[in-house]
């Protein structure tokens, strides 16, 4: 047989037809598609030995304890730490710790600003020498701002400041500071704690328990356990229900705390203190008294706030208020928490009113009530205690046009987080030499002359002592879970080194030595045990012996501004949007809903009645104007907002950090202005009015 050209073509045609009846073409097509998805430069998961270490989130202000899964000693996942007294769950911020280690917003090496305003790299010895020189020149004209109120690095900051002759060491404003000021005004040398574990009724007035107030993860765990208990019993066939915690909430926005509260009492923003006085009046009408020196004056003050007057000033529904007061009286261990929807700016007076309600409920230092915790210990000679640092108000300092020669910021971003950020930025720009110890290139770091990278919580050894809100004294140390991903050093060790170079002996060579010394204050827990993840706990309480409720201060400081042509501004916090220090974690961008952010435009919310009154409708593009600054937004009509109130979420409007935080909405702090709270020495910014108009 001869295979000629025609025959060959037939053979090829046959082969082509035949091959179509085999997997070859389809398999090749499929494999080629997969092959193009697996280029060599695409990172792959690496396997290896799985181990677990314990750590505490330093990104999350509530100090969430974490169990970190390591594969080949590389952190890959953050898990809850169920045994820890502050644990039992995980927050959306703590869970992002591993991913944030690789964030594009991180400061990767020490940076120094050049004459052209651009940053260039500098090595650590050079950076330390530069900072040392500036501190030596500045002497007592040095100021420190810390954004970590629960860590011992503050001892080094304050001891160094004192050694240089400066008293200007500040903590970023927080709920803890307002509570500390309230205690100071009442003559109580203690930290306010709340024993939710043993309480059966928690009334949160303003305090956003599940998002921003105090020990968020612990609060969530207790709510979950309390609500799940009857269902578990039902499944088991147990008829008698175990006691559960009921969370009630009063606030202007149906935030995540309000959504699960039973009931939610809508009130005007900034009316928390007045509502507490109204509740106090109703409790006294039922025979409750407090054992305070000035109780008579308090009774006189509170009697002004009849249920009708309280309803008029706060907007609360009198029936629901009566329901809550009845529940407080019938509960075995009720406790009242007063705070802010966004963990700042409420001032001390509302806390005074809240303490008075608790005193009337006779729950101070009682099981399930308010716990007066001993002040945090100080191990470094010359260092200021947390209580002493709380006494200094950062907003007052900025308002006083103080300009130090050197400003050192540790994990603090005042340019984003303080009211009127533009004014704060101008004040910081006026400082001749400013330094930021920061993990991320945030708004404040971007203004600095020297930016020194510090590690994430997983990359450094650090501690956490009794974060505000916890019901007992708790001390934990977080060990290094990971080798540093960037060229970092700790603030503490850098400043200890500089102090030594300056001839200042702060008593410790390394930060670890300071933590070892602090561990000695806690019985039953050695340094090694603490590093392994166990928390040192103490039930010790400060005896309540002679205190004042300070109705004189409440009378002057507790007012509710009435809206005229403006709406009341109700900022609220959501933990998934991060903090001023972190910005929005990349993964958490997925949790942003279309009704929260439309492109680059953030959403603000009013209820239907308010929208009609102002001639606004759902979807309108609006401008919020406080007379000084304006921010653009998209209006959403949501019935979970109090009348005459516009609700705005914190966490948007970053101009620094990374692509995951930038170009998303506006910073609501631009609409807030700090104003001195009468008689307390603090500033408050929980009551602001804004005009909302179509743009």
């Amino acid at each position: 047989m001869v295979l000629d050209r025609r025959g060959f073509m037939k053979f090829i045609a046959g082969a082509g037809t035949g091959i179509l009846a085999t997997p070859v073409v389809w398999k090749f097509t499929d494999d080629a598609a997969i092959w193009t998805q697996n280029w060599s430069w695409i990172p792959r998961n690496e396997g290896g030995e799985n181990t677990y270490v314990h750590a505490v989130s330093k990104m999350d202000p509530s100090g969430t304890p974490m169990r970190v899964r390591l594969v080949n000693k590389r952190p890959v996942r953050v898990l809850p730490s169920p045994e820890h007294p502050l644990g039992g769950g995980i927050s959306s911020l703590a869970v992002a710790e591993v991913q944030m280690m690789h964030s594009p917003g991180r400061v990767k090496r020490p940076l120094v600003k050049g004459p052209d305003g651009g940053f260039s790299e500098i090595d650590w010895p050079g950076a330390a020498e530069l900072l040392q020189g500036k501190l030596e020149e500045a002497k007592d004209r040095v100021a420190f701002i810390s954004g970590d109120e629960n860590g011992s690095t503050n001892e080094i900051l304050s001891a160094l400041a004192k050694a240089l002759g400066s008293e200007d060491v500040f903590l970023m404003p927080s709920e803890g500071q307002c509570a500390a000021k309230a205690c100071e005004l009442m003559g109580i040398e203690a930290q306010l704690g709340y024993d939710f574990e043993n309480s059966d009724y928690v009334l949160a007035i303003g305090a956003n328990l599940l998002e921003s107030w105090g020990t968020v993860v612990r609060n969530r765990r207790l709510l979950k356990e309390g609500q799940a208990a009857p269902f578990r019993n039902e499944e088991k066939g147990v008829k008698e229900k175990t006691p559960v915690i009921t969370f009630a909430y009063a606030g202007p926005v149906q935030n995540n705390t309000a959504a699960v509260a039973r009931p939610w009492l809508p009130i005007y923003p900034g009316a928390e203190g007045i509502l507490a006085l109204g509740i106090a009046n109703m409790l006294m009408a039922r025979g409750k008294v407090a054992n305070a020196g000035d109780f008579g004056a308090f009774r006189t003050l509170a009697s002004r706030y009849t249920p009708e007057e309280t309803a008029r000033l706060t907007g609360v529904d009198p029936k629901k208020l009566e329901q809550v007061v009845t529940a407080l009286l019938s509960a075995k261990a009720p406790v009242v928490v007063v705070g802010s929807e966004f963990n700042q700016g409420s001032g001390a007076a509302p806390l005074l009113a809240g303490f008075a309600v608790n005193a009337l409920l006779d729950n101070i230092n009682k099981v399930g009530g308010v716990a007066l915790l001993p002040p945090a210990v100080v191990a470094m000679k010359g260092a200021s205690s947390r209580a002493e640092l709380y006494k200094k108000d950062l907003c007052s300092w900025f308002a006083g046009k103080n300009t130090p020669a050197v400003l050192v910021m540790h994990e603090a971003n005042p340019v984003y987080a303080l009211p009127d950020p533009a004014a704060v930025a101008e004040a910081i720009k006026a400082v001749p030499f400013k330094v930021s110890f920061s993990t991320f290139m945030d708004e404040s770091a971007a203004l600095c002359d020297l930016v020194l990278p510090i590690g994430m919580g997983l990359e450094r050894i650090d501690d956490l002592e009794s974060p505000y809100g916890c019901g007992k004294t708790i001390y934990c140390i977080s060990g290094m879970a990971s080798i540093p991903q960037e060229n970092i050093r700790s603030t503490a060790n850098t400043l200890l080194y500089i102090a030594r170079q300056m001839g200042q002996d702060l008593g410790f060579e390394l930060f670890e030595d300071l933590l070892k010394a602090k561990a000695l204050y806690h019985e039953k827990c050695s340094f090694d045990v603490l590093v392994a993840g166990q928390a040192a706990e103490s039930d010790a309480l400060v005896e309540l012996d002679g205190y004042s409720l300070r109705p004189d201060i409440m009378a002057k400081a507790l007012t509710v501004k009435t809206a005229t042509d403006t709406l009341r501004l109700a900022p609220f916090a959501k933990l998934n949007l991060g903090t001023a220090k972190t910005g929005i974690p990349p993964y958490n961008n997925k949790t942003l809903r279309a009704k929260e952010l439309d492109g680059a435009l953030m959403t603000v919310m009013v209820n239907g009645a308010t929208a009609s009154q102002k001639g606004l409708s759902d979807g309108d593009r609006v401008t919020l104007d406080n007379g000084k600054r304006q921010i653009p937004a998209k209006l959403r009509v949501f019935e979970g907002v109090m009348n005459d109130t516009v609700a705005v979420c914190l966490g948007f409007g970053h101009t620094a950090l990374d692509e995951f935080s930038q170009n998303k909405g506006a910073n609501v702090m631009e609409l807030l202005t700090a104003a001195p709270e009468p008689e307390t020495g603090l500033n408050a910014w929980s009551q602001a009015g804004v005009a909302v108009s179509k743009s």
Partner: protein
Amino acid sequence: MEENKHCTDGPSCRLKCACGATPFLIGAIVALAFGWWIFPDLIFSKQSQPFYFSHSVHADTAGASCVDCHSFRDDGSFSGLPTLENCASCHSDILTAEPGPDSAKAEVAAYEAEKTFIEEYVNTGREVPWLTHQYQPDNVFFSHAAHFQKCYTCHLTMKDRDGRALNLGAPDNPQKLCMTCHPSLEELDKGIPVASNVLTDYSRTTMKMWECEKCHAYPGHFYDDGKGRTFANNACYTCHK
């Protein structure tokens, strides 16, 4: 035309030249043979495990259960293959009796395998570089815990509408659910080579989406169980995070 001239010489000529369907048929047969018998061997590389391992010996003779070696970690993730420490907890020394001249082939193989394991891995502390027959690529999130709990618990007892048992994991053969994706124990005991695609590097048994959808897109799995849950979610984010 020239071709036509060739074929005008009669029937014998048609046999000599490549006229008719013969070349076409030959071509088709060659392609089919290549496509169905040769190509599958070419596209997959074949590798052998470091040493012979018998699941049957461990399960039947030693009485080990699946979770003794393939367990869930504390965080619920699946450990997959056992570590050296896990194996060495039993095999710190050679347990198999030394085979004699009359020993069966399988006994000799088992002894040699264990000897290799002790000498090369236990004594040196080196992890065994086991090869995985079936793994999913990084772009897919697969939870053994979810499949084990949700699929296994139902398929043990449930029946379809016609009363037939949905016995993916029948009580008498609990590994059957595992075998939905993994090679059977019999195949593994035969020491089948680990096959990887030379183009994609995927294992031969890596499941493609259409295979996942046998269950995930199965209408019966969308029924609400009364607690607002479906039995198998087929949304994209279920597997692709």
